[in-house]
């Protein structure tokens, strides 16, 4: 309980969630692209050929 009364709870703005989702998706796509590129070119993801 705050001195100014009860805190008015509002729903979070979905726009920022969408932005975060887009950033995450973009990051995920980048990782997949890099992984595929490494796998098809070098045959492995983490080892040094």
């Amino acid at each position, binding site marked *: 309980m705050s001195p100014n009364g009860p805190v008015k709870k509002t729903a979070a703005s979905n726009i920022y969630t969408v*932005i975060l989702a*887009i950033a995450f998706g973009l*990051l995920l796509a980048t990782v997949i692209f890099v992984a595929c*590129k490494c796998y098809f*070119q070098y045959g492995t993801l983490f080892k040094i050929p």
Partner: protein
Amino acid sequence: MSNLTKVFIVLLTITSIFLCAIVVTYVANADNYKTRYSRIISERDALEQSKESLTSQLNEKNQQKDDLEKSLTGRIASEKAKADELRGKLGELERQNADLVQRTNDFAAVTKAFSETADKQTQTLNAALEEVKQLKAEQIKMGRELEEKSQALMEKTAIIETLETDKRRLTEEKADIQTRLDRLLGAGRGVAAAGLPVTPERGPAIAIPPVDRQVPLKGLVSEVDVRNAMATVSIGSADGVMKGTKFHITRGDEYICELSITDVDTDRAVGVLDLIQQQPRAGDNAVTEL
């Protein structure tokens, strides 16, 4: 959601987009190092094989070079020996050449002197031949004069013989007349018979006609001038040819023409062609009597 959180979300998103773009761009444009590595390895293996083959070839070539060097060294030594020998021969030949040049110069000088002597002798011979020609002409002229004088002498001898015969006959007639006169003057003697002179009476001396000493002349046609209808024969005044002598030009049994001599030299004569039956040419016979 606080403003700070919002700002943080936006910045995080922008940064994520930026970094993802960088990563994607880099990865998309990155070289395939495995392929490059494999290619480089294969190239290295090929180069090593090439190096080994080249090394073996080099060794082989070195071996061949050594062999060739040895053989060439031997040949060089032998060629040097031959060169020394040839130098010796060359020196000897140069000395012989110098001797031959000296001898050639000597021979040239001797030949030059001999040529000069031969020229002088040729000139002397030509002068002598000219003198001989003149002497022949003079001899022919003197022979004619001798013939004429001999003929005149024979005429005068005949006249003298005639005169002596007349003188002898007159002496005998005188003796006969004297005898008859003595008989007429003597008494009681008969008239003596008239005697006849022993020497027969001859007529007056008659000049002997000049003997025709013209012997047949025979020569050859040496030149023919068709344009001027003239020809040259190979005999001249030395053989008795005179101006006006007529030659009959024949070729075998054929009568060609007639040649009247107009100019006479000692060894040739030139005349005008006449009565041309065929064209005369050098080598035809020229005779004064057929």
